[in-house]
């Protein structure tokens, strides 16, 4: 029987069985989930086994306005990361180094994320890295400590699943719409316990940035990891990156990567088919990413749901979101717009948003923010003049970081504020206590910034719907 890419990568990293000990080839570290792990090492007198396979960055807590950190706890956490990295010899891309950024943006951008390797990070959106054909998943702090000490993880093998996108992507539809549409279809627990392979023509046609957006949100569908089998798009993306192999080694790597396929006769524990032709730009209306509908749709009415717990959940979500049942999505007005996060802060995302913004103005009642995912993305966007497109339209242009994705830094929503956000989670309070989040693509966020409410961006840019 044929093998999946997941089968191949898993098998080639097993160190021991019963229980399975899996070798980890790249461990990414950030300030929030690592301090207790380093402390654990210290207390037990242990060292970091492979600092050369470990990389730390600062992203969650850093302010993005370029100013110094004023929050004493955030400062202590960042200082702790710096001290821990020095003490244990772990390379660190500190704020201001020119290489810092959101952990899931810098891995691929530096060429550290590669096909066929295993990657972990104390962060659930580590699934992003699967876009390059890596097996990448989020872990908790105890596991961070385990990987630091042993470069391995004790892990029961997850099940396998394939999400096949059928049909041609309609014009103007983005990778964010594709993944939000898939999660809306299968629910936030739809991929629970599974490693998900994304396939189909729509995926093949996507850029690496687009595939990263899709894989990023795997965890919002409950999946452990998500990946795309590598192809020429992947190899072209990796060629010439800071950490990519060169010369004869590049050729050797290519041979190895080309063998990383899922065989035609391979089987999965589960298969889901998503028809992309019926999709329209997506907007979330509730308090989890599965509560999503088309921009031409309406907020649901709880009375449509017969199952009592489901009805109660929808009622609670609408109450938190301060939305009346049946409200057309296009009548929902926004106070804030956030373009950023590890889902949508890469150069292509910023280009896409800028193409909508160019020559237009942010609605007078909206405060809008663009936060590049890394220092490198920021520099590139500035070289292309995108920063001026945004600032001339009335957006704030910030330094790299997680920013308003989780509101652990000064970028937060005030209670009751409503935000069109390109991030990945619309949980209660995610962007600030009492804040209300609607998940959208960068293009849709840009359109909402201009109109002050949700609109089908395709009408705005005259592409026809």
């Amino acid at each position: 029987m044929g093998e999946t890419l997941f089968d191949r990568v898993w098998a080639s990293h097993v160190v021991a069985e019963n229980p399975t000990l899996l070798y980890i080839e790249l461990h990414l570290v950030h300030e929030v989930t690592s301090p207790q792990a380093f402390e654990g090492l210290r207390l037990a007198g242990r060292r970091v086994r492979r600092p050369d396979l470990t990389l730390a960055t600062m992203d969650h807590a850093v302010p993005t306005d370029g100013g110094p950190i004023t929050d004493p706890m955030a400062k202590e956490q960042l200082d702790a990361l710096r001290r821990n990295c020095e003490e244990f010899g772990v390379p660190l891309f500190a704020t201001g180094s020119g290489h810092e950024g959101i952990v899931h943006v810098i891995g691929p951008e530096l060429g550290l994320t590669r096909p066929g390797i295993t990657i972990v990070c104390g962060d659930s959106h580590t699934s992003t890295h699967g876009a390059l054909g890596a097996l990448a998943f989020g872990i908790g702090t105890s596991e961070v400590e385990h990987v630091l000490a042993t470069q391995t993880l004790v892990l029961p093998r997850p099940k396998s699943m394939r999400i096949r996108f059928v049909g041609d992507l309609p014009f103007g539809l983005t990778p964010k719409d594709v993944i939000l549409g898939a999660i809306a279809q299968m629910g936030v627990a739809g991929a629970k316990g599974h490693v998900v392979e994304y396939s189909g023509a729509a995926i093949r046609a996507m850029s690496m940035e687009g595939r990263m957006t899709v894989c990023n949100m795997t965890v919002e569908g409950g999946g452990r990891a998500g990946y795309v089998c590598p192809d020429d798009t992947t190899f072209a993306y990796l060629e010439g990156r800071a950490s990519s192999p060169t010369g004869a080694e590049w050729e050797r790597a290519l041979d190895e990567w080309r063998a990383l396929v899922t065989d035609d006769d391979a089987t999965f524990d589960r298969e889901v088919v998503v028809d992309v032709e019926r999709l329209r730009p997506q907007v979330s209306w509730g308090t989890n990413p599965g509560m999503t509908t088309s921009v031409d749709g309406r907020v649901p009415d709880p009375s449509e749901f017969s199952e009592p717990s489901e009805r109660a959940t929808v009622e609670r979500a609408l109450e938190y979101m301060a939305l009346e049942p049946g409200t057309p999505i296009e009548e929902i007005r926004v106070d804030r717009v956030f373009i950023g996060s590890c889902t949508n802060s890469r150069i292509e995302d910023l280009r896409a948003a800028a193409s909508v913004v160019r020559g237009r103005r942010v609605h007078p009642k909206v405060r809008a923010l663009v936060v590049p995912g890394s220092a490198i993305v920021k520099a590139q966007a500035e070289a292309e003049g995108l920063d001026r497109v945004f600032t001339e339209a009335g957006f704030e242009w910030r330094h790299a970081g997680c920013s308003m994705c989780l509101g652990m830094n000064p970028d937060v929503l005030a209670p009751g504020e409503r935000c069109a956000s390109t991030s990945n989670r619309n949980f209660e309070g995610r962007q600030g206590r009492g804040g209300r989040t609607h998940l959208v693509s960068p293009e849709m966020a840009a359109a909402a910034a201009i109109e002050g409410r949700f609109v089908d961006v395709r009408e705005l840019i005259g592409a026809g719907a």
Partner: protein
Amino acid sequence: MRAFRRTTARVAVLDRPNVDTDQIIAKQFLKSIARTGFGQYLFLDWRVDENGNPRPDFELNNPAYADAKILLAGPNFGCGSSREHAPWALLEYGFDVVVAPSFGDIFKMNSTKCGLVPIELPAEQVRKLIDEVDAQNGSEVTVDLETKTIVSPNGETIPFEFDDFIREELLEGRDEIGRTLMQEGAISAFEAAHPVRIDTAALAVS
């Protein structure tokens, strides 16, 4: 890690699906570099209002659930972020066990690594337990990890499944890192057989 064998304790019911880790412990508390101090912030925005007063309609504020050590929860409990602060906060608040139809993958793994016992039961069985507990306005349940059984308020014995290896770790409160380090030979052999493909140090500019 703390060990767990069995407990007979009061039960609290949080009958909502998809409770995410952002609700269990909000991000503003993740700035701490300590492993403790999170219990007081468990479900904070649901538990108390803007002025810090308890919200009477929040389930865990029900006096019948006071001192509960076992939490009965809805499906996909602990979905979302990888923060281990979530099980830490539940443990510190006083819970030893969470019983639910299903858990978020990372939350479940994190729980077993720090001594919180996540038990999955079919949704109908969780529903029945919830009904029994609520009918008696709060009551005691026994959870025995050694025999993999729960004794319901009505005295019914319900078996549950649990990964054998993880169960042993929890029963003994084992140091998993120490155990893996004893496999040093296997890890080194793997490294010798697999050439290094990545070097983060070559990029470092700190």
